[in-house]
């Protein structure tokens, strides 16, 4: 497969997804400012890191494309992995704090890791799956369109990490599937935000 079109596609999707994550982070920060709940602050920080990770990865890919330096791709991915893993830990941690703050909140766990390839994407898959399960449980109770969109978003993000895992296990076709799924996941978050802004 030609490398330039794949990188160009990856960069564009990464930037859009990154800005979507930062928008969610901003919205969560405004919610934290109103409610002063620590769980919302952790949630906001989690999405800020997720957005920063995607923007960093895309920027390093763009720089690699311009300077023709493949080592930048590995460097960008390392930053992306550390930030994304930390982001998911913070989001999972936000549910733990929520549980501590409220006797009725949902239970979750947290654990961080680091590396590149199938293993690292496998770790991110597990973390994204944990968030998706939490949101799935939430949707099963709430049955609202917004809770469904939140669940769908992390289900798609989980599937995207699963695709990246398969891609790095000698199935290159899953690279595009992974990017499409991640893009759709963050698009779902954008739709959720649009619905909330329109309703308020």
């Amino acid at each position, binding site marked *: 497969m030609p490398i330039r079109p794949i990188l160009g596609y990856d960069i564009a999707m990464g930037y859009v997804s990154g800005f979507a994550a930062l928008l969610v982070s901003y919205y969560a920060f405004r919610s934290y400012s109103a*409610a002063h*709940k620590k769980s*919302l602050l952790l949630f906001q920080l989690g999405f800020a890191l997720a957005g920063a990770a995607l923007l960093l990865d895309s920027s390093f890919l763009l720089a690699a494309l311009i300077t023709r330096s493949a080592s930048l791709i590995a460097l960008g991915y390392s930053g992306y992995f550390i930030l994304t893993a930390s982001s998911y830990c913070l989001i999972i941690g936000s549910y733990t704090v*929520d549980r501590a*703050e409220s006797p009725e909140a949902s239970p979750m766990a947290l654990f961080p890791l680091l590396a590149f390839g199938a293993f690292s994407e496998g770790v991110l898959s597990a973390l994204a799956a944990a968030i998706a399960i939490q*949101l799935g449980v939430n949707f099963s109770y709430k049955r609202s369109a917004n809770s469904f969109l939140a669940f769908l978003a992390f289900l798609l993000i989980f599937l995207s990490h699963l695709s990246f895992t398969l891609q790095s296990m000698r199935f290159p076709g899953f690279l595009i599937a992974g990017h499409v799924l991640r893009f759709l996941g963050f698009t779902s978050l954008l739709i959720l935000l649009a619905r909330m802004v329109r309703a308020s």
Partner: protein
Amino acid sequence: MKRYRSRLKIILDILEAVGEHGEKISAILTYANLSYDRCMRYLEELAEKGLVEKAEGGYRLTEKGYRFLEGLKRAEKLAEAFGFRL
């Protein structure tokens, strides 16, 4: 099962009651689902913070109260979507 209602949720319900369901005490009591004494304690506290003010026959939201209510409603929607409790 009886659902636990946090202090923040009670405040949100009271502000919604004052802002959207009339200024009369009886309407606020009905919407916020609180006893008279408890509701009055909350209303006095909110009045001290400048979020509501006394009006003829009840209370009304101040400008600060409207802004606070809008912020809380946004927070509630986000919390509801992601499974947090206010």
